[in-house]
């Protein structure tokens, strides 16, 4: 019953969004049914559709979890975008500096030649650590000086983007390369594509090991939040800081911890993006993963399972949008942004549905 209630509102929001979106499509002059068939169908075709959908979902799972963990502590992390950039760069940097010799890359001076078994975990840890630090900074600022984390995370987004563009352009780009990207990471820092293990899934599809890490992250976040004393303290702080303080919990410590964990989770996007896909840092690679993560967390009700499902939904839209763009007369892939927007509006306006549902006696009334 409780589960049903949790799922009910996001589900209604999604259905309502699709109805409204369908009306818009119809007004523009295309068939809503055809469009949705295209949108959903293309995302579920085997192997490309499913492969790419899951690949697209991976960063959204990480950022969705990141936002959710911060939110459970009563914090709004708008800075997942900056955190994942810093993390991706850190992963790429370790991959460049400590990898096996690469004849194609003599530009970046290497400090050591580590085998994949050492290098890969190092790259992953670098990504998580960099994200955690970048997320932890606004945490410390809030805990220490009371400055609001929303402002600070937004500002740190700008700083991250500008700083990394600078490093890319002037330090780590191969001279003459017209694209804003660093030199490639060592091949020993490549994360294996899942196509190698799954029959029928070609290896060219970038769905990689990071997706499994994302599922693992969902499980670990769930265990952390609801099964450990640390998660209890974090949630208590989010639910009622005064009561948490009364219960002997250090609010300051929780704020820093939550922001660092949040940043670390956002940083795991770098694992998917750099180690599993581009094998270099590519300036401005993120398709607003950090911000869509807020929507994912909201739709997913800040629960790992919800985040996973919401990330999949948004990834379907992302993937399907390309086909809607190409194969309809009038509708462009902006329909996807619109649908996302409407979903969020409906989720945020949950009270709108509670009223009518009460009328039908679906919700238990509270005694006056």
């Amino acid at each position, binding site marked *: 019953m409780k589960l049903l209630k949790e799922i009910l509102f996001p589900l209604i929001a999604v259905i309502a969004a699709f109805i409204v979106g369908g009306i818009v499509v119809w007004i523009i002059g295309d068939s809503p049914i055809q469009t949705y068939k295209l949108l959903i169908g293309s995302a579920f075709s085997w192997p490309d559709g499913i492969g790419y959908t899951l690949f697209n979902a991976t960063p959204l799972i990480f950022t969705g979890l990141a936002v959710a963990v911060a939110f459970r502590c009563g914090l709004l992390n708008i800075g997942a975008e900056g955190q994942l950039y810093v993390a991706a760069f850190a992963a790429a940097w370790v991959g460049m500096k400590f990898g096996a010799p690469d004849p194609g890359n003599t530009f970046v001076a290497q400090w050591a030649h580590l085998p994949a078994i050492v290098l890969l975990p190092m790259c992953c840890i670098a990504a998580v650590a960099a994200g955690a630090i970048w997320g932890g900074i606004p945490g410390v600022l809030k805990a220490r000086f009371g400055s609001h984390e929303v402002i600070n995370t937004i500002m740190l987004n700008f700083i991250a983007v500008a700083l990394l563009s600078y490093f890319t352009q002037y330090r780590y780009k191969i001279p003459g390369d017209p694209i804003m990207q660093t030199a490639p990471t060592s091949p020993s820092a490549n994360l294996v594509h899942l196509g190698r293990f799954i029959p029928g899934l070609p290896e060219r599809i970038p769905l990689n090991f990071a997706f499994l890490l994302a599922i693992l992250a969902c499980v670990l976040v769930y265990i952390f939040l609801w099964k450990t004393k640390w998660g209890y303290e974090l*949630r208590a702080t989010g639910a*009622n800081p005064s009561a948490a303080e009364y219960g002997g919990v250090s609010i300051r410590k929780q704020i820093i911890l939550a922001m660092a964990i949040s940043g670390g989770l956002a940083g795991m996007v770098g694992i998917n993006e750099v180690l599993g896909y581009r094998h270099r840092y590519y300036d401005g690679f993120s398709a607003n993963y950090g911000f869509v993560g807020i929507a994912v967390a909201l739709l997913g009700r800040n629960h790992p399972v919800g985040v996973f499902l919401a990330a999949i939904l948004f990834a379907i839209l992302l993937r399907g949008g390309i086909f809607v763009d190409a194969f309809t007369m009038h509708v462009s892939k902006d329909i996807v942004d619109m649908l996302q927007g409407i979903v969020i509006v409906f989720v945020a306006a949950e009270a709108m549905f509670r009223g009518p549902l009460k009328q039908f006696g679906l919700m*238990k009334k509270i*005694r*006056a």
Partner: protein
Amino acid sequence: MIELRNITKRFGAVLANDRVSIKVAPGTIHAIVGENGAGKSTAMRIAYGFYTADSGDILINGEVRQIRTPHDAIALGIGMVHQHFMLVEPMTVAENIVLGAEPGTAVSLDLKKAAEEIRKVSDEFRLAVDPNATIETLSVGQQQRVELLKALYRHAQLLILDEPTAVLTPQEVEEFFAILRRMREQGKTIVIITHKLSEVLAISDEVTVMRDGKVVGEVKTSETNAAELARLMVGREVLLRVEKPDANPGAAVLKVKDLSIVGRDGSKRVDGVTFEISASEIVGIAGVEGNGQTELIEALAGLIPGSHVSGAISFEGRDITQTNARRRKELGIAHVPEDRHRRGLLLDFSLAENTILGVHYRKPAVSRDGILLDQKGIQRRTEQVIRDFDVRPPNPLLPARALSGGNQQKLIIGREFELPPKLLLVSQPTRGVDIGAIEFIHRKIVALRDAGCAVLLVSAELEEVTALSDRLLVIHNGQIVGEVDPKKVSNEDIGLMMTGGHK
């Protein structure tokens, strides 16, 4: 004046009012009493048009009238003052009072005329409210009088007051009652919803008692007493007096020396307080709210930053002035905070999660590894608290929000008593709690004392501190102004000390 006839109102599965009939005679003060959830507020909200009844009639001056909205009620001369004031803080008294019934034309607002009229009404009932004062500069008692004015300005003949004294100090209650009596003399009719029996007896002419959505008694105040009313409210015999044997104090547990506390704004809240509490005794602190009691208790519980505290607190011979809240709890200092919603509970968390607050990091809440929560251990503890402290409904998975005030309080007290404590800091233990639960909580506190615990009790209810305490300290303006014997002292003497006068 007003009569409810067979009013029935159902919220989902809950029958909030079951054929409720109440007849209020004109020119009287009529009290409606009952425990939380008895349906008294619902009945009055129906009379005021907030809800419409499923069935039944409302009669005004003998005629059946339809009251569908508060607007209808106002037109019929009914006014209501809610427990939580509905005032716009940055606006003036006059602006607040005319809100919704602005005088003047569509484009101009004649506030001057309104202010004059308000002053006239205020003088008539000696309310002493300045129409041009800003709401936020007024005390709670004055704000309440603004609410009264609001209804009187709209020519209300019948005033419904929902728990009007809950926010007032004892002095303010006296003033407030004087105002009500004046209003009665002027021919107004007043319905007062409350659960404080002493007030019912002090102010009302007639009493209607409700329980579980039904009217269970109608009596003239002059022909009843507290015990009878309590029995009607609860449905069984209730002990109104605390029965406790004399204290047999042991060694000193807590020693407070020259304790001063500075508030966030830099002002001194507690000023050089010195006292001791021994094992097996209850020391009460009487005082008008806001005289440093809150800060004193929080400082003893370790919830005020050490930099704001000076002086020395020692517990069982150990200096704990700079010890944090967690460590103090480990030493055996339990704390029942005055504001259970703000401090004491995680309202959206389950009862089980609430019973481990403060002990969530050690056994039995965590398993052997010291990290993972031990669900079985937590459940056992929760079931024990629920059983020993009669928390209803006894479902560990329910969110704390779903419980009534009394049951929430029993949950907190159960959690803290379970430590088990050597020193209990307890503040407003029965605020907003039903009489049945009050009796229970008082008995538990006395039992804890008899088991050897030292208790520091703060309460705004004078009767509560005098009845429970073995020794009574009076606080005024952050200073302890005297110690009295609660068995011998009169309320007048304490009242005088509380307000800064001396015995």
